[in-house]
Structure formats: C-alpha cells, structure tokens
C-alpha cells in the first residue's frame, strides 16, 4: 500500500443505531497523517459516539475502521491503544485520588507492557517514572506532580487528561472537547499545549469552542444527526451557507 496516501485513520460507511435512533449514518471519514482536523456539530450530532466507535468502546452495526490502512473494526479497545489510537475524555476521566505523576506513570507502564508485573515494585521502574515526570515538565505540571488530581483546578485536570494520552505515544489522538468546562481565561494554556503537540501525531479535535477550532484546525468536518454535512478547510466551512444555517448561526468567526 502507498505509504504516503494511506490515511492515519479512516472510516468507511460507519453505521450505529440505538433502536430507532441513528447516531452514525454511513460516516466516511479520513484523517491524514499529521493532520490537524476538527470535528464539529450541534449537540447530539453524534460526535462523541463517533469517538467511542473509533476507539472501540462501542461496536458499529456496519462499516469499517482502518488505522494506518489496517482493519481494526473488530479489535478490542486495548489493542487499538497499543497501535497508537488514543483518546481523551470530554468529561475528565482520571484516577482522581492518585497523584498526577501516578496517573501518567500508569499509562506509561501499560504502554511499555510492564503494567501486569506482579513482583517488582513500581518504584523499581525508574525509566517509566522519569519519563512521566519529563512529560509533566513539558506541560508545566511538574510542580504539582505529587498532588492528587481531585485537588487540582479543572483547567489543570484537563491538562493531565492530555498528559495521560501523550504518555501512550499516540499516532492518532482524538481530543474530545479538550477545553470543555474550562474558564475562558484558562483555555489559552490548553490551546497552546495543543498547538505545540508533535507534528507527526494526527490530531482529531471534537470541539464546541470555535476559537480553538479555527485557531488549530487545518481541516473541519461538520457532523449533523450522525451524517457528514460538510468537510473542508476552515475558510470554506465558515462560508458554507448550509453549515452557517444549522450550526454556526451568527456565531461564525468574524
């Protein structure tokens, strides 16, 4: 297969219904290597469902999911993570009573395949702990490394959410509303972190915050009622009358 043209992630005719409610309707989607791609759409458009389908938390009724050209439709969640398909959660899902350092170290242990080790103490894996600490330094979290996550401001928790996903060395990273619930004053830090992410990671951002979307994304897909309504570069999407009507309304970027 042609290395250059194989997308990092691709879905073909992805279909999912809950009873009569169709939440993903023949979704064809391509995420190019190293892309900065945003998935937007009104509430209930099926954005988070799409993430759950792609990561394997939900099973599609039909269609195919390909990671790096390989069919992963029937792989369990853990195997997809091992292949570099990683997500963050819209509502922070961390080990709340554990320290930031431990949250990240747990992820690194799983990535390195030492997470099931029964006898050697975790403290005897200094490489894993040091890697976790370096990652915290990169995100400016090192001063709070030993604080439990539930003692942190929500904006900081969102950063930990990103730190844990980076600990898994993702090739494809799905950021599910990374700035959700963060006071507008703090969302700048998160946008900066996202902008600084290594360029070889293919990034899909599911987001409501249009500032973030238009600052980061080079390509936008609009999802409405489980179907792709439009796709293209940001300027094109911002001009699209159909998109403006159903979604952007008068809130479109100035």
């Amino acid at each position, binding site marked *: 297969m042609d290395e250059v043209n194989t997308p990092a992630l691709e879905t073909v005719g992805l279909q999912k219904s809950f009873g009569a409610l169709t939440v993903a309707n023949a979704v064809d989607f391509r995420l190019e290597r190293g892309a900065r791609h945003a998935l937007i759409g009104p509430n209930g458009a099926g954005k988070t469902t799409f993430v759950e389908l792609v*990561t394997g*938390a939900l099973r599609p009724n039909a269609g195919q999911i390909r990671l790096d050209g390989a069919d992963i439709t029937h792989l369990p*969640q*853990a*195997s*997809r*993570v*091992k292949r570099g398909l*990683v*997500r963050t*959660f819209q509502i922070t*899902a*961390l*080990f*709340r*009573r*554990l*320290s930031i*350092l*431990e949250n990240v*170290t*747990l*992820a690194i*242990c*799983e*990535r390195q395949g*030492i*997470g*099931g*080790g*029964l*006898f*050697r*103490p*975790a*403290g*005897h*894996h*200094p490489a894993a*702990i*040091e890697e976790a*600490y370096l990652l915290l330094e990169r995100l400016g979290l*090192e001063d709070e*490394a*030993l604080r439990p996550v539930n003692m942190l401001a929500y904006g900081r928790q969102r950063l930990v959410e990103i730190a*844990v996903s980076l*600990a*898994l060395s993702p090739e494809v990273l799905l950021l599910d509303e990374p700035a959700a619930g963060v006071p507008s004053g703090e969302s700048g830090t998160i946008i900066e972190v996202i902008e600084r992410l290594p360029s070889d990671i293919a990034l899909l951002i599911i987001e409501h915050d249009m500032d973030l979307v238009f600052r980061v994304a080079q390509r936008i897909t609009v999802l409405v009622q489980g179907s792709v309504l439009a796709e293209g570069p940001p300027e094109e999407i911002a001009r699209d009358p159909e998109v403006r009507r159903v979604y952007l309304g008068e809130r479109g970027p100035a």
Partner: protein
Amino acid sequence: MRNSGAVGIFARRHHHHPLEALPWLAAVAAYFAFPSYLPLGAQILATILFALSADLVLGYAGIVTLGQAAFFGAGAYTAGLLAAHGWGEPVSGLLAGAVVAALIGLLSGIVILRTTGLTLLMLTLVVASMLYEAVNKASWLTGGDDGLQGMQVWPIFGWFRFDLFGRTAYCYCLIVLFLCWLAVRRMVHSPFGRSLVGIRENIRRMHAIGAPVARRRLVVYTISAALAGASGVLIAQTTGFVGLTFLGLDRSGSVLIMLIIGGVGRLYGAFIGVPLYMIAQDRFSEIDPVYWYFWIGLLMVVVVVFARGGVLGLFERFWRWTR
C-alpha cells in the same frame, strides 16, 4: 538521568516504614503476654489473612464480593478431607487448599467477572450458595450438616505437634500470615497492584490506556481466592474441624465488617479490624451471651457514621490534622 524530588519520593513509596513492624511486634508480644488465649490468637491471625484476601479484591480492585467464604470453605474442606483420609501433613494440605480455592476462583471468575457492581455482588453470592449446597448435599463425603469428622493433622515437618495450648497453632498461623502479607505487600506496590487501584478509581480510563482490565481482575480474583483458601485451611487444621459454617454467608459478611472497621484498601485494615472485632466478640459473648451481636452492630454503626475509612481512616485524618 535526573532524579528530582518528586520522582524520588514516588519511587521510594514501597520502602518499609518502621510502623509496619508494629503488628508483628504486637503478635509476638501477645504470644508471651496472653499464653491462655493462644487458640483465639491463632483464629485471629488466620482471619486476618482472610480479611487481607478480601481487601485485595474489594479495597484494591474494587470488586464488591459477598462470596469470599466460598474460597475459605473450599480450602478448609480440601485440607480437611485430606486429613480425614490419611494425609494429615499440614504444609502440603495448606498448599492443596490454596490451589483448589484458586481454581474455584479462576473458573467462577471467568464467568462472573464479566459483570460489575450489583450484578457481580449477586453472582458472588450465588457461587458461594451453590458451593454451600453442593457440600451439604455430598454428605457421604463431607458429613453435610454435621461437619467433617475424623481429621488427623500431623505435626508440622513431622516435629511440631499441634498442642492443647495452641502454641504451635499460633506460630504456624503467624508464619503463614507473615509470608502471605509479604507477598501481598509486594503485589500491591507492583505495577500490577497500581493498575488494580486504577481499575478501582476509573475503569473507563484503564480501558482507554490500553490495560487488559478483564485479565487483571481475573488474576487478582484468583490470587485472593488462594489466600482465602489458605486462611480456611489454617482454621481447619488448627481447630481440627470443618463444617458448613465455613462456607456460609455469615462468614463472607463478617469478614467485610471486620475489614470496614479496620479500613478498606489500606493493606493494614485487616490487622486492626479483625482483632478488634474478634476480641470484642469474645468479650461481648461472655458479658452478654445472647445479645452480643447487638453490640457488634452498634460498634459497626459508630464506625460507619463517625469514622469513614475505619480506624485507619481516623488515624490518617488525625495525622494530617496534627501537621
């Protein structure tokens, strides 16, 4: 590479703290201080092992169970049957009981650990009830309601005879408990043990970081079953009796109560809750033979209302408050 303060502190968490010697010093001191209570002491030590097994699944992995007695009883009946049919060697009996209990844990775990929460709780109860009835029904082998008769437990290593004063029993239970505690302590500080805490704290996140959650739960369930089995063996061998109460719901329930009194998910809750409960039980039943369970109940209410996190939780809060 650099070794900053945070990394160092984090990497040293598994080092032994001087306070951890306390239960062992107390156990040795009790041997000399209360020579007439050694049979009770042996029971307490064996039950601490049982509570430790429950802490591993409930406190660390967050698996709520009311079926721990199934493994306790399976171990006890295995060693009991061996001792009643001509093989009274205690150490091999202990291993056999642990292995049989582990197998039952593994096989039932494969089926029931697909579920979580309340459904899982009911299923653990079902497994224990099924085993209870099976043992009851097979009275030709197990003695049914009357319990297993005729256990002959040999001296340990052919040398240390189980004496009337419970000296051998106490030391045997203490050594087995100590070895199991070492193993459990090592395990909870291993990456595996930390991943169990992760499963307890946020199972969705564990899936999302690519952890084989189902396998981890099955492994800890099996290990816990083995420890519970070993605990049952200790009680069977040191009392020379096994009966249906070994498998009863009462036993699964009371071990949780003891653990909650001590503190769940802290490794040492068992070492505090079990002696407290069993000594209180011994005292109360002497003072008030009919209604002693009422006082235990009252103690439980006080702990749950005023000391969330058990006695250890209280200590932790006090320690934080003084700093």
